[in-house]
């Protein structure tokens, strides 16, 4: 088997596409003007930003005046939630609803607000990594300021019933924010039809550069200024615009949303082949709902295997993947997302996420399907935990219930 190089971590970041780069480069060298300047060079830069804003607005079904460019998804999440909390908290609305498997940009913002006297309800996701609009309805109170629920989960790829949740929030007159960092370009989004008040997006997940993104804020929703200074972003977020990044983002989101159904058809076929092939490995499990799932997401746990070892051996075989193991999370606890599904630590430690894209090929899939079982077998051969599993020891009986049979 000839060694290949396969980038299967598109949920972490993506390469800047040729199309995006071509759009960006002139903004750095030729049309380098400050958009606030009066002369033509400046006006051209301003026009480039206006064009990009229109492209972004078109991609998610809103008007350009509702788009605020940011440094990325985390900034947009922070801004949306803190802004709602600051404005509505003053009116006595000091309750926030989110889920227990959000990105840390949302969770840590909520934890910060808890210290400021807010109360946060963390809706528990079910074993498949989904929540329902009914859960949201039941949690909404008189004093609820904002509901923030991710569109699609970054680790297990599950897609939430956003339109229904938005309906409930609209009916109850509560602000609804969604972190759509993983969803943009992978599912058709229309903020008006889906009742979304605020939406966060990151550029580098859709082939724009890192450090760029936007927050959509529906017209009429009051917002707290994020950065004080000049009048950029209608005075909401001061600082000279990152013109090349913004132009790149406009191009990237246009490309990403051009033909989503075709992308879903192509990529999900490869995803399903990966899931079917890899879950043939004994004592494995697919994490996250099989159907309500991003087209490129595969997240599988192997009992008796530790995730970081798995990633290092995959890397040695040319495959870039990620894991929710403690050792890769930078703490001693495995991923909060996998624990939120109710998985025991032993199962969460042995997880592997592959996130493929349109650039992935059938040959890549064949190669991954050849390499993964070998690597898992190699790690298990030296794992005392695997030895316990084979010997039917008591300590492994609970985790065994979460995975496919040994034989």
């Amino acid at each position, binding site marked *: 088997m000839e060694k290949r190089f396969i980038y299967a971590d598109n949920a972490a970041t993506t390469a800047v596409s040729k199309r995006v780069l071509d759009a960006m480069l002139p903004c750095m060298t030729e049309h380098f003007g400050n958009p606030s300047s009066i002369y033509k060079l400046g006006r051209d830069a301003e026009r480039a930003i206006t064009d990009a804003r229109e492209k972004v607005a078109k991609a998610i079904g809103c008007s350009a005046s509702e788009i605020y460019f940011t440094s990325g998804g985390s900034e947009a999440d922070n801004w949306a939630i803190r802004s709602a909390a600051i404005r509505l908290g003053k009116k006595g609305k000091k309750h926030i609803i989110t889920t227990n498997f959000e990105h840390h940009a949302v969770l840590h913002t909520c934890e910060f607000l808890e210290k400021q006297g807010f109360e946060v309800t963390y809706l528990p996701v079910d074993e498949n990594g989904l929540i329902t609009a009914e859960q949201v309805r039941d949690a909404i109170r008189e004093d609820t300021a904002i509901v923030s629920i991710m569109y699609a989960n970054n680790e297990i790829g599950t897609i939430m019933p956003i339109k229904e949740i938005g309906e409930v929030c609209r009916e109850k007159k509560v602000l609804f924010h969604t972190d759509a960092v993983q969803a943009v370009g992978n599912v058709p989004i229309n903020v008006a039809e889906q009742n979304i008040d605020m939406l966060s997006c990151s550029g580098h997940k859709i082939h724009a550069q890192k450090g760029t993104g936007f927050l959509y804020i529906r017209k009429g929703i009051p917002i707290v200024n994020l950065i004080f200074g000049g009048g950029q972003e209608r005075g909401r977020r001061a600082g000279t615009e990152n013109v090349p990044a913004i132009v790149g983002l406009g191009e990237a989101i246009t490309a990403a949303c051009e033909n989503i159904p075709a992308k879903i058809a192509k990529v999900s076929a490869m995803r399903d082949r990966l899931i079917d092939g890899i879950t043939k490995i004994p004592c494995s499990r697919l994490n996250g709902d099989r159907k309500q799932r991003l087209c490129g997401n595969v997240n599988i746990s192997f009992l008796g295997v*530790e995730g970081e*070892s798995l990633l290092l*051996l995959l890397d040695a075989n040319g495959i870039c993947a990620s894991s929710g193991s403690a*050792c890769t999370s930078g703490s001693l606890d495995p991923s909060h997302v996998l624990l939120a599904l109710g998985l025991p630590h*032993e199962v969460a430690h042995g997880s592997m996420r592959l996130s493929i894209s349109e650039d992935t090929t059938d040959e890549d899939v064949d190669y991954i399907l050849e390499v993964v079982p070998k690597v898992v077998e190699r790690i298990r051969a*030296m*794992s*005392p935990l695997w030895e316990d599993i084979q010997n039917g020891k008591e300590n492994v009986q609970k985790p065994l219930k979460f995975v496919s049979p040994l034989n």
Partner: protein
Amino acid sequence: MLYSEKVMDHFANPRNVGEIEDADGIGEVGNAKCGDIMKMYIKVEGGIITDVKFKTFGCGAAVATSSIATEMLKGKSIEDALKLTNKAVVEALEGLPPQKLHCSVLAEQAVKSALSDYYRRQGIDPVPIVGEIGECEACH
């Protein structure tokens, strides 16, 4: 996070992997919940450790620390083996990232656990010699 070349070498080509069927001492430390288990087997002849094998469930650093610890033990007298510290393991690996230092502690404990088992099998109370083997602090 960056691993030294030595760590990567011991992870990719671990030395002394396996079991010793007629081992004179077997030690096991760590737990699956924390994501690290090390099991170490030693063979002792005339007070010298003549063979060492290990099995590890854990990250790259866990595999590498156990691998190099087995190399450092082989041929040593029991007395010298008792002096093996986690610091020596880290130095032999040309360093570990700070968040991985607990793996070297686990390796030291695996060695001590195997030596304790050896003493116990000889009918000798290991505690005065080896000391108590605490749980890995990082896990609590």
